[in-house]
């Protein structure tokens, strides 16, 4: 399984959506609920019969709406399509039924609309406009960027504008992210070793990081708090941090993984926390204080602290955290293809590996308090 996403619109419950990849069986979307207090995982299954899921994303406005990119196999041809779905109402905010027989009473997704890509090629991913009303999505199909307007309660997708990447050879977007800054007018895409920025209004390229990585760029993410900062990862085992105003040199480079890095994610609230997943089966949580929006840590109101805490606090302030790897999680036994932070709890994240194992982890308590206090 490769597809993992938090339920973006959900801010109370910790909920992830996982899409399965199976060629021979019906594919499913698993809704994973994590009960933080009781440490219980609940699972609900939605059938996704049209094909194996390569990418999944949820609407930021409507808990029940999600988009998938799936493989459709027919006549010895494989086509990756995309569609917007609605899950059954009762599952939107999770149910606490017994998970034992979840597979038996699997429910089906309601198809809202197809993103018609017959003219554009294979869909690589679907992005929702962050903080938007769930009306705008962008999909990457081969070398095209397609901006869709969802109309009639998402029942109809209208292609509002598109842009195509021209160049020699077969250009193919591998991934993209929609920037939450600048009124959500920018997206970044990756193709081969290049990272490009686009303006969604004009659909023109605004910056281009040539050879951002030595090999294929696998994923991107925007710093949620610093508008020009962008993280990228790729097949050269590196994670790079860019200031998009200066595309010649990365701000910082991490080389912690021993194989391709498939995924990089900023924590939504504390942008010093970087999560990366790699096909060396590891998930690494890094603390990039120096390039975060809080390079000096929180300002602390001394009065609120007791003397002892005060002492403790001072000790910590004396030695500000360096950029470092906080933890390496080695629970996975196969390549990790997706990592995501929970949308509800900023200290919690999930990772998904090829063999279908989903692991939910927390930021170490000590670090959490250090960041908070």
């Amino acid at each position: 399984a490769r597809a993992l996403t938090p339920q973006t619109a959900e801010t109370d419950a910790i909920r992830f959506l996982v899409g399965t990849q199976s060629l021979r069986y019906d594919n499913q979307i698993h809704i994973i609920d994590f009960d933080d207090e009781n440490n219980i995982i609940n699972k609900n299954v939605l059938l996704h019969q049209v094909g194996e899921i390569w990418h999944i994303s949820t609407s930021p406005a409507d808990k029940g709406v999600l988009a998938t990119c799936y493989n459709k196999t027919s006549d010895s041809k494989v086509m990756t399509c995309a569609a917007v779905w609605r899950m059954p109402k009762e599952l939107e905010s999770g149910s606490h039924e017994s998970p034992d027989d979840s597979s038996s009473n699997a429910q089906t997704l309601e198809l809202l609309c197809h993103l018609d890509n017959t003219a554009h090629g294979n869909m690589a991913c679907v992005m929702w406009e962050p903080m938007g009303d769930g009306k705008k999505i962008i999909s990457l199909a081969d070398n095209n960027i397609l901006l869709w307007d969802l109309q009639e309660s998402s029942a109809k997708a209208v292609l509002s504008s598109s842009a195509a990447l021209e160049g020699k050879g077969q250009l193919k977007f591998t991934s993209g992210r929609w920037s939450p800054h600048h009124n959500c007018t920018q997206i970044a895409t990756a193709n081969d070793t290049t990272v490009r920025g686009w303006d969604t209004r004009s659909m023109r390229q605004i910056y281009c990081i040539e050879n951002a990585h030595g090999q294929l760029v696998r994923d991107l993410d925007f710093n949620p708090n610093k508008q020009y900062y962008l993280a990228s990862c790729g097949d050269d085992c590196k994670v790079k941090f860019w200031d998009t105003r200066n595309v010649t040199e990365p701000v910082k480079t991490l080389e912690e993984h021993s194989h391709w890095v498939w995924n990089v994610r900023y924590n939504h609230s504390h942008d010093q926390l970087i999560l990366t997943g790699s096909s060396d089966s590891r998930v690494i949580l890094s603390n990039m204080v120096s390039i975060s929006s809080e390079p000096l840590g929180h300002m602390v109101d001394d009065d609120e602290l007791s003397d002892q805490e005060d002492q403790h606090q001072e000790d910590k302030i004396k030695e500000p955290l360096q950029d470092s790897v906080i933890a390496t999680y080695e629970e996975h036994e196969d390549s990790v293809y997706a990592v995501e932070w929970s949308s509800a709890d900023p200290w919690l994240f999930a990772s998904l590996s090829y063999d279908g194992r989903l692991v939910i982890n927390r930021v170490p308590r000590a670090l959490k308090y250090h960041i908070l206090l």
Partner: protein
Amino acid sequence: MAEVEAAGTGAGGSPEASGSGSGSGWRRPHGPLQRYYGPPAAETAEAVPDPADINGPHFDPEVFLTKVRSECSLGQLLAREAALGREIRALDSDMQTLLYENYNKFISATGEHPAVGTQASGRDWGGPRHQASDSFFSDTIRKMKVDFRRMEAEMDDLAANMAAISTSSARVQALLRKLQSLVEVPGRLRRWAAPGADPARALHCHARARAVLRHYRHLPSFRAIEDESHAIMADLARRLRARLRDDTLDPKELTECVEMLLQLEEPPEELCEEFLSHAGARLEAELAALEAELPPADASGTAATPPPASDILDFVDRGSSTFVGNLCLLAASYRSLFEGRPGAGDGRLEAFAATLTTRYFELLERRLALERGLGDTSLLVRALDRFHRRLRALLELLPAAGAEAGATLVARAARERVDRYLWALQTFFLGCLGDVRQALAAPRPPGKEGPGLPDLLATLASSVLGQLKAVLAYVQLFTAKDVAFASLPYFKGEFCMEAVREGLVVAFVRWLCRTARGFADGPAERGAPAAPPALLLLLARLCLDYEATTISYILTLTDEQFPPEDTGPAVTPGPALCAEARGAAQRLLDHYVQVQGAAVAQMLRKSVETRDWLGTVEPRNVRAVMKRVVEDITAIDVQVGQLFEEGVRRAQSSDSSRRAFSVYSSSRAPGRYAPSYTPSAPMDTHLLSNIQKLFSERIDIFSPVEFNKVSVLTGIIKISLKTLLECVRLRTLGRFGLQQVQVDGHYLQLYLWRFAADERVVQGLLDEVAASAAHRCLDPVPMEHSVVELICERG
């Protein structure tokens, strides 16, 4: 007789009185004598005794001389002197005549009475008849005897008087001569002080006359002389001063000039000011001449400066001989001129010299800065040596003239040269690298092997080492025994330690490691042309060799040639450098693995991505790309084998018969080894059972490798196979696609296992590929194993 008696009566007079009276009386000598011997009472009564009367009994020569001198004119004096001389001589002769005359009379008188004596003597026995005559005789004789005695005394007195007179006359004469010369002073002065004449003699003359003139300036005539001579001298001084300002004066003339002015009692302060300013102008001119040789100092420093007209030794030579020499001369003459005079000892000379030497140093520095190239170090050393020697001579005269600055200058020049050598070494190394790259890139005619990597490595290492040694030898010139400045404490301690050991050797090794690292870190992924993998390998080996032997060798060599001081500053220890070199080697080798692995991986990725795995036909062959992979890896194996040792393989758990095949002899000629593996060997069942265990064993794909061939190859193979795995997972395969993957995997296993340190790694990865392919396959019907083997064998 009567005169004798008269003389006798006057014998009681002053004994020193002598000579004849003045006036005309001297022609009759008897006259004055008469008067002299005459009754003194009468004379006393006649006149007050005049001490100035040369004939008077109260004559006092001093008084007389004073009187004469003050009263008479020079002409008169001279005449008087001559007259006196004549008179004295006349007196002398008169006296002698008198003496002989009287003596003769006496003798004849005694002869008239030859018996008197005898009779007188015998009369004691005779009788008293001659009593009367006897008594008369004896009286007479007695009287005569007394007279004679008196006469003798008179004569003595006379002689004494004569001597006194002649002495005084000599003095008078000298005095007169002096006066004469005094009178002539202005004339002489004028003559000598005239332009172009001999002012030194004028000065000499003036100096002699001055005291006298000053003493007697109350006399109008003397004052006139003095005034006149003053005027002349003032004029002379004026002219001398004018001359002093003349630029064409050479230092010697200048010194003379000032000396004369000093003698003229010109104010020394002013003079030394002038002296210095004049000398300063002169020295400045010399400096300017030196400066003229230098290209104009342009701040930008970018303009290409033409090569200097003369070499550094020449420059320093000229600088020393003109500037430093003259400065020495100047200092010496200043010392001799103004020593002990007021206003000269307040360090003015020192300040003056310091300013000039500073300028000189500046010039020299600029000139040294021109020595950009490496030229001839011995020339530079000799130049610096000469400079230093001259400077030392100067410093002996002027301790404050910037000894520090001079030594610093030399030290800096030496340091700079060392830096330049470092730079040259680096350039040389880069040049060597360029050669190596070229040799690597050069197209080789088929069938003919280019220079092997070991040869290239040996050439590179030896030429770099040779160059380093040569540089050390050059630098050693700075500390040679016959070089004066080598004995400076700087050159003994700091230079050896900081400049040579740290600044040259250590810096070079560091730089080499950094440069080598740069090939791994820098340009590979961003723009600049990446270094060819073979170069990486070569550099890795080079760094490793440095770590193993070369660094310690170089350091030992350096310490031998430049013995470090015990108390010297802390130096970089060899092990630290070795660690650095090792780090660089590790980085390079890792990078080599990554680059090569990436190359193979890229090939595999493209081949997987571009193929239509669903619609493929039944596999009949191993795909060409797999053969290519095996070929490439074999080539890499050969390449690495040239430079690195075989390394240790992990002992196989069972089947020893397979191990026999795994022994790969690196002594075999590269390129000639054909695959000796016979694939008929059956798959070890025990090994297969181990696969599951292997899964749990994490395989780090991009991980540091060891410095041996097996480890390097294992790294590359791991990267390649992992890529294959990930790519297959991204595809959807049909049945024949799966079978193709099966065939390819088997083929790879056949040919790759012997390169890896642990063939289970290869096995495990390939099994995973197969499993993933099966998982991604729509219709997973694997191929018969025997068929797979058959196809592979055929391929």
